[in-house]
């Protein structure tokens, strides 16, 4: 079976509640206690599981403690599957590959200089750990995550008039940043995974 089939199967497993897009409300059943091993916003209406990065930031920000549960989940996944979970399970990885495959200006050789790969370290240390630890914000989710905007923000805002009224500068910032990411993703395969995603970095530790 090709990798794309696995990606689609895992996408369907993670998103069984498609009808929730009509109401703009996320599923809130018991499976939300488990973190999926990919970058998939837990506020996405159809998502059945939790987002590991979002959960880490939430626990650090609101409980000021080490997120043992999520780290336990990620280390177990990382040591068993390693970065394969990025290639087979992550819905945002699938989104990037589909986008790149239909892009008219894709390039298989395009790569940013090597130092750009350290951006994900900055994301992890500064936005996922330090900013939430000071109780300031869920840094990565609030200011960077394109998965949150595409899979949760846009559908929820489209379906929910009340939430639409509270759109502010952060939303427009994320919209611009996501557009920039999409342009780069269309040029370079899995651009976001290569340079930005701290989840792949965490899973890579245990690979």
């Amino acid at each position: 079976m090709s990798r794309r089939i696995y990606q689609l199967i895992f996408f369907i497993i993670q998103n069984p509640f498609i009808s929730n897009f009509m109401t703009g409300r996320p599923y809130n059943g018991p499976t939300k206690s488990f973190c999926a091993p990919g970058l998939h916003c837990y506020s996405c209406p159809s998502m059945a599981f939790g987002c590991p990065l979002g959960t880490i930031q939430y626990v650090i920000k609101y409980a000021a403690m080490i997120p043992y549960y999520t780290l336990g989940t990620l280390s177990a996944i990382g040591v068993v599957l390693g970065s394969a979970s990025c290639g087979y399970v992550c819905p945002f990885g699938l989104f990037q590959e589909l986008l790149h495959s239909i892009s008219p200006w894709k390039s298989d050789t395009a790569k940013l200089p090597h130092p750009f790969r350290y951006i994900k370290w900055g994301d992890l240390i500064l936005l996922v750990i330090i900013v939430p630890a000071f109780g300031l914000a869920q840094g990565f989710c609030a200011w960077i995550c394109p998965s949150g905007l595409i899979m949760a923000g846009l559908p929820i805002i489209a379906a929910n008039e009340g939430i639409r009224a509270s759109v502010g500068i952060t939303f427009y910032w994320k919209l611009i940043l996501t557009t920039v990411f999409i342009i780069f993703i269309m040029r370079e395969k899995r651009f976001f995974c290569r340079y930005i995603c701290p989840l792949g970095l965490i899973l890579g530790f245990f690979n």
Partner: protein
Amino acid sequence: MKKIVIVSIILIISLIFLIKGWVHEIDEDGTKEIDLVNAAGKNVCMSCIGLADENIFEKLFGTSEKKDNE
């Protein structure tokens, strides 16, 4: 052999962390880490969808209004 030992140790530590998340109470009300994970997942996350216009400078340095009142 060395690889198997390291993988086993990491898996055991992961298991301990997972159990701690389910069992260990983090405050006097009996809240567990898994309750936080649940709470995070069940609500619309304003940060994630780009609606958390949090004023970082205000949080770090306090408001200028407060200083004016003083």
